[in-house]
Every structure is written in structure tokens, then in C-alpha cells.
């Protein structure tokens, strides 16, 4: 359960392969001995404490981390998506960065942000062609933000902002969608909406890999979890990896895992103890 394990989605065609990768920044390795396969059609989440290398793993796929050993490779060719479509080159990646990194004062509308996704492939003119405009409109409608197209990105709700940046990634028709903490800062309803949307996209054939701190949401929505802390601690289904022992090794803290039928709830021991004490005090009062 620690390396090169099947993706859990039933698909067996590897899309991205990490081969004993060591990478980081400025000569300092953030990740070491990473051997991992990401399969076509997989829907996986990376969990781990802050500084464990979650974002660096995504950046390694994007070619934006310094490689000190090993390699990260895309497979040579992907099978066609849909009947009659030609075989496509791999490595078409859509990337949704952490929203915290976005400059919300920048003067751009939703439409302009999404059209950036086509900046390298929609001709030399400053405007989009008719077909690209139609696709953009249809995509925004599908993601439920069609009415916000001309709004400034700052004026959207958190969920809508996440969808706008997701649209920028999707308009490229990616094979692989990488999302850095897509549920960060979102309320419960928005979190579930985003994860459901990602599940729908995954069902359409897009491979999805995301990072998150939200263990309970990924336990409920994602079929495959990678536990990371500089190295891969474990990977597998939430049932397999969400144990006190594995999460304790991942986070370096005592973790409490409660199972209630299909439901898995995770908390660190300190928080769980405080909750129990608070509940006891409340009952006493």
C-alpha cells in the first residue's frame, strides 16, 4: 500500500508515473523517494500536514519543481476519448491553484479569466473566435456561473470563484486536472458542491488529483487517498488509509478515526478531547 499501487478506479492505464522522485526548491528536497502511479480516470486526493509537499507533488507534475533524483513522466499516448476521436498526445493538464494565491484586486472579469485558458491556442488576436466564445459560454453555463461572466472575480462567492478557475482549467479539455486545495476556506455546502462537480468530471473521463486538508470531506467523496509527509506514507481507499496509525504517521500527531457504517470521521486527539470536554460542560450546564 505504499507505492505504485493500482488506482482504485478500475482503470489500469497509467497517466503519470513518479519514479523514485526527489524534488524541491533551491537545492532543498521537499519530497523524497516518491514512487507513484496516477492512472487514467483516477480520482485521488493528497493529504498531509502543512509543508508535507502536497503542492510540490502537483508542481512536480507541472514541471515547476526542481528535480534532484528520479523522474516524473507522462505515458506516451492516451487512448482516444469518445468514439471516432483520434489518439491524443498526453500531458494536457488543467491546473487550479490555491485561491489564496490569486490577486483579487486585478481588474479582470470571469470571462477574461476563463479565456486565459486558451491564451496559447486561440490565435494571435486579442479576442476569442466565435467557436471558442460559444464553448466558453457553454462551460460557464454548465458550471452554473453563466450569469457572472461579466462580473469582476472579486464580486463572486467563494464557490463561484472556485468554479471560475475550474472553468479556466476545463476549457483546455484537459486529460488531467490538478487542484491545489479546492475546498480551502469553503463552507460545508460549497465544499460538497465542488467535490460532487469534480466527481462528475471524473465520471466523464478526466483524471483528477487534488490536495486538501479536509480529511472528512475526502473520506466521503474520494475513492483514493495518498498520505504524504515528505514521502508517501500510504495510499489506498479511505477505508484502508484512514486509520489512527497511518494518519498518526502522516501528521505526526495522535489522530482519532470514528467509523459509523460507511461514514468515516477524523480528528486529531487534542481537538477530539476538547470537543468531548466542551460537550460534557454543556450537558452539565
Amino acid at each position, binding site marked *: 500500500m505504499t507505492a505504485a499501487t493500482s488506482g482504485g478506479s478500475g482503470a489500469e492505464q497509467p497517466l503519470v508515473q513518479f519514479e523514485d522522485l526527489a524534488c524541491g*526548491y*533551491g*537545492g532543498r528536497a521537499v519530497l523524497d523517494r516518491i514512487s507513484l502511479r496516477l492512472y487514467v480516470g483516477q480520482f485521488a486526493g493528497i493529504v498531509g500536514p502543512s509543508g508535507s509537499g502536497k503542492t510540490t507533488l502537483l508542481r512536480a507534475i*507541472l514541471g*515547476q519543481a526542481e528535480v534532484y533524483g528520479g523522474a516524473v513522466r507522462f505515458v506516451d499516448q492516451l487512448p482516444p476519448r469518445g468514439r471516432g476521436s483520434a489518439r491524443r498526445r498526453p500531458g494536457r*493538464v488543467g*491546473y487550479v*491553484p490555491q485561491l489564496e494565491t*490569486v*490577486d483579487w*484586486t*486585478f*481588474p*479582470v*472579469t470571469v470571462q*477574461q*479569466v476563463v*479565456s*486565459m*485558458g*486558451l*491564451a*496559447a*491556442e*486561440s490565435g*494571435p488576436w*486579442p479576442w476569442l473566435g466565435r467557436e471558442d466564445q460559444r464553448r466558453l459560454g457553454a462551460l460557464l453555463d454548465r458550471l452554473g456561473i453563466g450569469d457572472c461572466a461579466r462580473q*469582476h472575480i*472579486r*464580486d463572486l462567492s467563494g464557490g463561484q470563484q472556485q468554479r471560475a478557475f475550474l472553468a479556466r482549467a476545463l476549457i*483546455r479539455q484537459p486529460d488531467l486536472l490538478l487542484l491545489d486545495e479546492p475546498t480551502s476556506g469553503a463552507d460545508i455546502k460549497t465544499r460538497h458542491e465542488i467535490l460532487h462537480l469534480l466527481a462528475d468530471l471524473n465520471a466523464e473521463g478526466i483524471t483528477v488529483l487534488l490536495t486538501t486538508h479536509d480529511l472528512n470531506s475526502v473520506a466521503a467523496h474520494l475513492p483514493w487517498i495518498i498520505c504524504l509527509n515528505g514521502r508517501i506514507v500510504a495510499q489506498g481507499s479511505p477505508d484502508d488509509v484512514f486509520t489512527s496509525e497511518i494518519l498518526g504517521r502522516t501528521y505526526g500527531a495522535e489522530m482519532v478515526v470514528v467509523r459509523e457504517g460507511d461514514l468515516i470521521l477524523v480528528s486529531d486527539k487534542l481537538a477530539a478531547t476538547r470537543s468531548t470536554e466542551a460537550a460534557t460542560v454543556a450537558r452539565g450546564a
Partner: protein
Amino acid sequence: MLLEPLRYDFFVRGLIAATLVGGLCGLVGVYIVLRRMSYIGHGLSHAVFGGAVTSYVMHLNFYVGAGLWGFVSALLIHALSRRRGIGADAAIGIITTASFAVGVALISRYRRFTRNFEASLFGNILGVTDQDLAVVVAVSTGAVVLIFFLYKSLLFTTFDPEVASVYGVPSGRVEALFALLLAATIIASMQVLGVTLIAAAIVIPAIVARLLTDSFSTMLWLSTLVGSLCGLVGIYLSYFLDISSGATIVLVSAGVFAVALGVTTFRGQSGGRAARRTIAAGRTRTTAGPFD
């Protein structure tokens, strides 16, 4: 009365140059301000001064020597600031002040030509030659063409440089072209505004436009328009008040900024609030952006 100075050829040349340079700085300034690299304009204009003096000493054409020097300086800043442990602010400080110091050292060594560079330092619109004007026209035209065809790539690399390269935008080439454009803008503006005042002409129109709009495309033409008008009004005032053209243009721009800030503050526009946040962010991160 306004037509009176138009009888003089030097004034007409100066008027055209100031209007074009104002618009050019306004156009390029949008990207500078949004990249929060306002200090690069100031620094690079000083770096180019070193190139100007060096090209004079080496008997090279001013525009070729200074242009090459400015372009290389911009690329060096870009490369140096990407090294861990050297921030963009330090990179700009090192390259530009060292470059400026080369100019000062050469001037102090060959004192006989000190006066030739007063125009470069403080601007001398009355001394604009046909060649200077041709350079301003060429750079302005080039800037419009470059920004037209690189509009999407420049927007993406300005907004989100890391993701732009992931999405196939050739960020390195786009940044190199922008560095070239910035160096060319500064060189074309030196005769009109002077090294010491270029940064303000680049930054102020863009900030004024940002105060008034939340749309990137509107900001582009508005900043260009504000820059041009400030150049036009500034050159007239310079003539009638008999003060330095560069200083007058910058003071007019500063006045327009004060009015725009007052109006947007009074109206409490959301765009104004956003821009004030941009200004505040710019104060704390004046050199961030793609030169990070």
C-alpha cells in the same frame, strides 16, 4: 493663445513627442502597476543612463547602446531575482545602481561632456530632434503592435505567471519581449521626461485608470489616454510657465491622480476601493511580479 506656440517647429515636435511618450508610458505602465513592479521603471531608467553614457564614450549610437544596455539590465534583473536568497528588490537595486554608477563614473572621468546628459537626467523637450521624434513614433507603434498581438499572453503572465506557463504560454519569451518593450519605452522617454521622472509617468496614469475602472481592457486605453493628455497639457504648461517639461508633465499627472482619488473616495466606488488596495499592496510589494 493656445495656437501661438505652434508657430515654432521645436514646440510642435515637443508636443507630438510628449503626447506620444505620455500615452506610451501610460500603456506600458498598466502592466508595470498590475505586476506591482513600479520600482523597475525607476531603476531601469537609471540603468539606461549608464548605457547612454557608455555608448557616448564608445562612440556608439545612443539608441542602440542605451537600448541594448537597458534590455540586458532588465534580463539580468529578471535572472538574478529568480535566484534563491536574492529578492527582486535587491536585484533591481544592485543592477540599476551599479549601472547608474557606471554612468556617473564615466561623467566624472570625462568632465567635458557633463552638460550633454542634463537632458537625459531632467528631460529637455525643446531639444527633441527629428531622430528623437522618429524613435518615439517607432517605439509607440511597436508597443501598440506588440501589446495587440501579445494581449492574451501578457494578460495571463501578468495575472498569473506560474499558471500561464503551465497552460502553454511561452512565459520566458513573453517576459523577454516585455523587458525589451520596457527598455525601449524608457529610452524613447528619456529626452522628454528625463531619467529621474520616467517612473512617475509610467505609474501615475495606470493608477488613475485603475481608480476609475475594474476592466483590464478599459484600463489599458484609459491609462494611455490619461498619459497622452497629461503629456499634452504638461508641455503647454511647461512652455507658458517656463519650467522643465518632464517635471510639468509629472506634476499634471500627480494632479490628475489627486482628483481621481478624491472623486472615487467621495463616490465610494468599489473600483476605487480595489485600486486603493492595489496602491497599498504596491507600497509594500513594489517590486513583486514576474521579477520575483
